[in-house]
């Protein structure tokens, strides 16, 4: 056991020496103010979706910004389908000329402008140009499609290997078999019950692995932030809400509006509270996932920026080690948040299909 801890501390110290390259010999004070706003912009830019995969960008010797990445198609509906590459938008610097229309990026949204790229603002500094309906393949959409394809082939391979290999799993899917069984035996059956759990299993499994894979993707340096986007989590919570309420039995609604075994004045007082509860539970699911993941990303990015604020050897290495440890915790948070979402969804499904087995208590 002594040897294992020696290995860990050796690697931590080794990584601590790496940020020496952040040293530079320019004056610190006048740059600090620019750096703070640059860091804020970097963090905000990472949290939002963007129309291209921006892997790397730097300013070369002539002061021109060079971006290395992969531009994604922009698909707009503006009285007609318009498809063009997002490299025409140049990260918000230039105006895209498509057919007879001109489009410009402002705060990551596409607006229709004239040929000079004029954007008119109203009193609260919101642009008043027309924004066409945006169906583009943004970074988030491509990550979701990518994750779905990976999940599909992974689990299809696992399912097929049972037939070929005499009911024993073979291949990469072997790693996920215990997890699938765990979701069935510890999450679905205790919460939903033996009779109905099979109807909900496919959704629960998809939810668990989808959120887990997307959370892990968010931790890679590709800068993809899908589950930290409130639109994605709101859709997941909405689907849980719809499934709960559309497959609910009469007992479920009876328990909400006209609780048996409770005196009449309390029944009337409790009904609106229960109705609110029906809305608040999926809302809390949405906020929990969104806030956990985006808070984790913000903390991680701030610590990484700290490496570049401390331009000396000691500060940068300590910040690096701190950022490294926080990333390890974020991996745990990725699994935990997927698990919590799944468990709570299973719990709500269980409420919806509960059998009415306490008739005898009514008097």
């Amino acid at each position, binding site marked *: 056991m002594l040897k294992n801890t020696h290995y860990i501390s050796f690697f931590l110290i080794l990584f601590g020496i790496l940020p020496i390259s952040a040293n530079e010999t320019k004056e610190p004070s006048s740059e600090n103010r620019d750096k703070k706003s640059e860091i804020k912009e970097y963090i905000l830019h990472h949290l939002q979706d963007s129309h291209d995969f921006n892997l790397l960008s730097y300013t070369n010797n002539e002061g021109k910004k060079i971006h290395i990445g992969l531009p994604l198609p922009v698909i707009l509906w503006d009285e007609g389908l318009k498809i063009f590459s997002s490299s025409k938008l140049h990260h918000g610097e230039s105006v895209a000329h498509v057919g007879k229309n001109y489009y410009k990026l402002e705060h990551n949204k596409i607006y229709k402008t004239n040929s000079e790229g004029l954007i008119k603002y109203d009193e609260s500094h919101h642009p008043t140009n027309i924004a066409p309906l945006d169906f583009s393949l943004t970074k988030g959409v491509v990550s979701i499609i990518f994750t779905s394809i990976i999940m599909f082939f992974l689990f299809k391979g696992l399912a097929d290997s049972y037939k070929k290999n005499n009911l024993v799993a073979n291949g990469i899917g072997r790693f996920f078999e215990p997890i699938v069984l765990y979701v069935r035996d510890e999450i679905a059956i205790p919460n939903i019950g033996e009779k109905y759990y099979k109807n909900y299993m496919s959704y629960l499994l998809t939810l668990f692995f989808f959120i887990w894979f997307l959370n892990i993707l968010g931790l890679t340096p590709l800068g993809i932030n899908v589950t930290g986007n409130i639109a994605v989590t709101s859709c997941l919570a909405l689907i849980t809400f719809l499934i709960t309420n559309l497959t609910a039995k009469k007992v479920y609604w009876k328990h909400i509006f006209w609780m048996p075994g409770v005196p009449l004045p309390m029944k009337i007082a409790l009904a609106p509270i229960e109705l609110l509860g029906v809305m608040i539970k999926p809302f809390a699911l949405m906020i*929990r996932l969104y*806030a*956990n993941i985006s808070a984790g990303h913000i903390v991680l990015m701030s610590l990484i920026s700290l490496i570049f604020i401390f331009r000396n050897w000691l500060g940068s290495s300590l910040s690096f080690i701190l950022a490294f440890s926080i990333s390890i915790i974020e991996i745990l948070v990725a699994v*935990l948040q997927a*698990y*919590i979402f799944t*468990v709570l969804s299973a719990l709500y499904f269980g409420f919806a299909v509960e059998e009415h087995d306490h008739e005898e208590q009514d008097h």
Partner: protein
Amino acid sequence: MEIPKIIGAGLVVIGVGIGIGNIGKGAMEAIGRQPDATGKIQTVMLIAAALVEGIGFAALFAV
């Protein structure tokens, strides 16, 4: 960056800290009494902790 907002956010964090600490305390006492049930207790502890943490993110809306 008004002062009441900052104080409010700080109070939320104190609340979450006390809450999750109590959950951990209860979990450890339970495991001490029945070490065989460690798996189940751990599972329930994590669920309760995540629920309390979910409220804690209200602090983010204050700032």
